């Protein structure tokens, strides 16, 4: 199959390219970039990208596919359709499935199930400890062989710091990346919202910023001790960013990401107990949100992720503190990246780096690039068209998000995965 993507504005953050260039694809790879086709290239299919931006397929560092175990909330099919519709061609999924991704057979089954041409590439994050219980290590080498790119705890903490130290030492032995959310479980106990003005007013139990900074201090100290490659997931506070920046300056290898929700929302968005804003970590203050937006722009925060977590209506139609945590995000990652870029007046090549080349390098995979020879994982989107977030417009089985009802910038026209047309937005 030979594809010619013509008349588009090509943005390739990896090579800092932003130019009107055509793209030529053969056998699942990029074979030509520029005005003229490589010698002997005869397209079977021509995709018109007039008015559109052609960029690498998005790489999402956190998407819960709810398989195995929670198929009533979402299935691989529904969520992969959502990913493709969102221009996402590669994603990492956290290990908090049921059963937990703590043994190679489960990981193999998941990656095998996900191996369809129209499905995004799936990179499971293996459990760092058995059952995510924070007590015994998993067979990390075996899990890595089965396809795990990193090891983590999803949003469950390892309470016992000796176990955490050893888990990081063991991972460092094989140079496996360790992905950790920084939240002290004691300070977060029973908490459902940022410990600030809104929680005080609504009578909700708070999670202080210190829950993040204390856990982060532990993680960063142990990263220095062990030399483990640490990626901090879902940073939520200004103070947390400062610590990461300082740690990097001190020579600690640490990266971090932020979720789309925390980039655009803050504690005020809880409004009158809106359970759509029940998220983990909690939405923090306006000041924190501004720091997250600036930090992502400067590169202090390396990547933006959807933190896609399909939750059904039963899980949300509850009193705030009893409601389930999470929101759908796959189809909002690109629009919310564009919205942030517009509001921050950022060049698109910088903004798109945070959802393509930068997360790809955190995953340690060759992706997120439009160089000749690269896999043809491509997103073509119309930046002038809008995406209205409605239950009907969302392909994900998760219909709950705090952005419901909003009109966001950017609509995906085509998504290609290994040169296969996985999504065609012109079909209506």
């Amino acid at each position: 199959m030979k594809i010619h993507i013509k008349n588009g504005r090509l943005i390739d953050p990896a090579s800092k390219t932003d130019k009107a260039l055509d793209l030529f694809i053969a056998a699942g790879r990029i074979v030509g970039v520029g005005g003229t086709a490589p010698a002997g290239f005869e397209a079977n299919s021509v995709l018109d990208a007039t008015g559109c931006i052609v960029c690498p397929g998005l790489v999402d560092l956190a998407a819960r596919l709810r398989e195995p175990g929670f198929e009533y909330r979402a299935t691989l099919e529904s969520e992969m359709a959502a990913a493709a519709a969102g221009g996402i061609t590669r994603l990492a999924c956290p290990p908090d499935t049921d059963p937990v991704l703590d043994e190679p057979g489960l990981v193999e089954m998941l990656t095998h199930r996900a191996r369809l041409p129209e499905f995004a590439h799936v990179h499971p994050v293996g459990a760092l400890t058995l059952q995510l219980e924070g007590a015994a290590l998993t067979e990390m080498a075996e899990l890595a062989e089965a396809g795990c790119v990193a090891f983590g705890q999803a949003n469950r903490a390892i309470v016992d710091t000796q176990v955490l130290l050893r888990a990081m030492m063991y991972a460092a032995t094989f140079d496996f990346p360790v992905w950790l959310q920084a939240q002290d479980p004691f300070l977060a106990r029973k908490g459902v919202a940022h410990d600030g003005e809104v929680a005080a007013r609504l009578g909700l139990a708070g999670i202080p910023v210190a829950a993040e900074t204390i856990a982060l201090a532990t993680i960063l100290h142990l990263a220095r001790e062990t030399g483990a490659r640490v990626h901090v997931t879902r940073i939520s506070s200004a103070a947390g960013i400062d610590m990461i920046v300082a740690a990097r300056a001190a020579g600690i290898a640490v990266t971090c990401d932020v979720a789309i929700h925390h980039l655009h929302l803050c504690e005020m968005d809880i409004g009158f107990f809106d359970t759509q804003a029940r998220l983990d970590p909690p939405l923090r203050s306006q000041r924190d949100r501004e720091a997250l937006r600036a930090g992502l722009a400067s590169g202090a925060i390396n990547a933006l992720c959807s933190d896609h977590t399909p939750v059904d209506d039963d899980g949300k139609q509850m009193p705030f503190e009893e409601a389930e945590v999470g929101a759908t995000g796959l189809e909002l990652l690109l629009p919310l990246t564009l919205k942030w870029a517009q509001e921050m007046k950022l060049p698109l090549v910088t903004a798109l780096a945070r959802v393509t080349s930068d997360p790809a390098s955190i995953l340690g995979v060759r992706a997120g690039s439009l160089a000749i020879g690269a896999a043809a994982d491509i997103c073509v989107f119309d930046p002038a068209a809008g995406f209205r977030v409605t239950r009907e417009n969302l392909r994900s089985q998760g219909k709950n998000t705090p952005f419901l009802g909003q009109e966001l910038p950017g609509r995906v026209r085509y998504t290609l995965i290994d040169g296969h047309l996985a999504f065609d937005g012109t079909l209506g």
Partner: protein
Amino acid sequence: MQKSPQLNSHGELQHLLTIEGLPRDVLTRILDTAAPFSEVAEREVKKVPLLRGKSVFNLFFENSTRTRTTFEIAAKRLSADVINLNINTSSANKGETLLDTADNLAAMQADMFVVRHASSGAPFLLAQHMAATGRDHIHVVNAGDGRHAHPTQGLLDMYTIRHYKTDFTQLTIAIVGDVLHSRVARSQIHALTTLGVPEVRVIAPKTLLPTGIERLGVRVFHDMREGLRGVDVVMMLRLQNERMQGALLPSTQEYFKSYGLTPEKLALAKPDAIVMHPGPMNRGVEIDSAVADGSQAVILPQVTFGIAVRMAVMAMLAGN
């Protein structure tokens, strides 16, 4: 941002969920409406027909004899049919959700739900659900949700203060005790600041104050003696048994020593200061019996006024 579900498009009270955000004139109107209802209680036949033919469901997901009883009396004096449901002993244990329970009762032609729930915001959920399903004619009254609000308690406290002190704009008022876990305190603070009380103080150890409480417009004191100096009204809060020892407080004895209201501490307030308590009291923990039974206490009148205020709220929401 969602819109406040308690006012309808004409700015009238549709539900009573919280005092926060209610305009001063709405609060004043409720207090004014309550005044004649106090007199109903003095009559031989203690009934008015304002809610005749209406069904009021007391939905108590959390135990409370006192509040439930006063709501029941208020509804009955308005001639409503009252159905009491203590749900922590029935369906909630069978896994039925709050909204399923409400849907079932709504199908029994309810006109009003009086709801108490352990989770902050539960009555909002109910009100939003009624609106979303086209059942706007069913009114929701919050009878206490988690730590969030207890608006009728806040209103009856305002009624009591107005009864003894008349002008809110001349007062200094102290709220003492476990503000962190108190829905009563939050409702009191919103009511007092809305009614124009120039100085609202909260007095508590740091472990019993929520972060950012000063943004609600209160002055924070940790020294009770300092905080009580010159106040017109002392509003005591109940300390729940489970908070009396542990990581929040070392012991009831130490709490009483620092934050218990004794005659000696009360002497620092204005000589005509009144002492209030939402009940039930823990004598010797937050309040000394000499104060609770003393001449400055208005704790029993609060209970009496509570019925009139609850009648006023119900009549304004659903009155014929």
